[in-house]
């Protein structure tokens, strides 16, 4: 080893020494001077997780509400808003839980709050009750007719468009505008209470449409086809969408 160093020219030895010193300094700093919380990923993760877990909550969760309030949750239980959390409308309420007398949660009373969900929008799934705020009792607060904890229409919906506005609107612009829903669908009374479990009917026979659209039909001014050859085994609505213009 010594021989080897002797053989090296002096400048090389200098360079090697410089690098060795640097390496030792770095090693010492890293190993002995830097505290472990700065270089141990495991420690850092644990403390980061703890900090994350210790963050304050703002929304208390429905479980907290029912500990003091019983009337509203009881009413809500059987109504259409049964799945709605209290804080969906009343806003973040952890502060209220911490200090029930001084901090009160909000209670939206204006029409635009209800409109977040119930304003008509064709992207909303059909069957979801929607209204056009400009036409539906304009300016009247929603809560003067509907109890938000058990929102029932004051009377059972007269027409289907309370929930199926999208279909209704499309139909209004189509050739079928004058045909009412019940001509083709029978809706059991229970559909209005449990819309997803009790479902209205659809025409199940080709002959149903054939009453107007068959070649042999006596109706005038209606496009007709030869039902015997047209469309084979399919029921008409499997290809034609009867609610839109032209029924394509």
């Amino acid at each position, binding site marked *: 080893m010594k021989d080897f160093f002797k053989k090296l020219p002096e400048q090389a030895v200098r360079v090697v020494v410089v690098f060795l010193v640097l390496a030792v300094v770095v090693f010492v700093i890293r190993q002995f001077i830097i505290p472990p919380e700065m270089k141990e*990923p495991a420690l*850092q*993760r644990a*403390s*980061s*997780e*703890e*900090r*994350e*877990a*210790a*963050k*304050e*909550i*703002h*929304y208390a*969760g*429905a*479980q907290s509400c029912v500990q003091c309030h019983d009337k509203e949750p009881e009413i809500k239980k059987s109504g259409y*808003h049964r*799945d*709605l*959390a209290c*804080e*969906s409308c009343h*806003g*973040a309420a952890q502060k209220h839980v911490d200090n029930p007398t001084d901090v009160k949660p909000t209670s939206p009373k204006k029409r635009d709050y209800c409109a*977040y*969900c119930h*304003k008509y*929008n*064709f*992207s*909303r*799934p059909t069957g*979801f009750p929607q209204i056009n705020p400009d036409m539906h009792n304009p300016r009247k607060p929603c809560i003067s007719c509907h109890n938000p904890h058990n929102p029932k229409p004051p009377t059972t919906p007269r027409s289907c468009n309370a929930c199926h506005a*999208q279909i209704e*609107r*499309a139909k209004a*612009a*189509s050739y079928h505008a004058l045909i009412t829903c019940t001509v083709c669908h029978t809706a059991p009374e229970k559909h209005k209470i449990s819309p997803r479990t009790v479902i209205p009917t659809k025409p199940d026979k080709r002959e149903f449409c054939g009453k107007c659209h068959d070649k042999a039909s006596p109706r005038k001014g209606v496009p007709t086809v030869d039902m015997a050859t047209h469309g084979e085994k399919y029921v008409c609505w499997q290809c034609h969408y009867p609610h*839109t*213009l032209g029924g394509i």
Partner: protein
Amino acid sequence: MERRDFLKHLCWVITSGGILGGLSADAWAKMLNKDYDTTKHYYGMGIDIDKCIGCGRCMQACKTENDVPAVPFYFRTWVERYVIRTDRTVSVNTINMESDELGDVLAEKDVLRSFFVPKLCNQCDHPPCVQVCPVGATFKTDDGVILVDSKRCIGCRYCIQACPYGARYLHPKTRVADKCTFCYHRLVRGLLPVCVEVCPKQARIFGDMKSIASPLGRFTRMNKIHVLKPSLNTDPKVYYANLDGEVN
């Protein structure tokens, strides 16, 4: 002990007469969740497209719960609205609670189908964001949540580039990366993520994948499930039912 912790410590000593005095904020949090064992859980979320009504309650609650800047540009979760026209062109926008852009610009007859898509961090099982973080400030917890250590993140934003879903942003105040944490601070207290809590339609289903009998368990049993951008092999833990092929 850091100075801030020390001050907190001091407050505790004074206010609670020394009973809880020996604890720093972190230790306090730990005591709060002493039954919580990270290894016993593995979280995921289900989203049912057919149920979402695009009301934006989740976006709003998330901003409140997680101190996300209240301007319409930083989101931990957001809702996109898809409109597919009869000529197969697609337009998309992020719904905005403030403005009234939910209003309809299209005639119904031009719409082939339309729906809302809630988005958030997918808490990927193979998270590219974790892979690229140079300092290991973003990491996966034992219960499967991807967190950002806000004390160590250097704000290089490599993770934001690496996330295929646009789920991350640089927080304008702290200047570090921020994103959805599944409301980790709520999970450890046994509460639901706030978006799930306030969703009026139960379009979001949260659950523990280590337990079969959970709402998420049923959700993944009863639906055909799809995830976003499966070709990137990120293995998202946010599962969509009734997702349209146009969504990306």
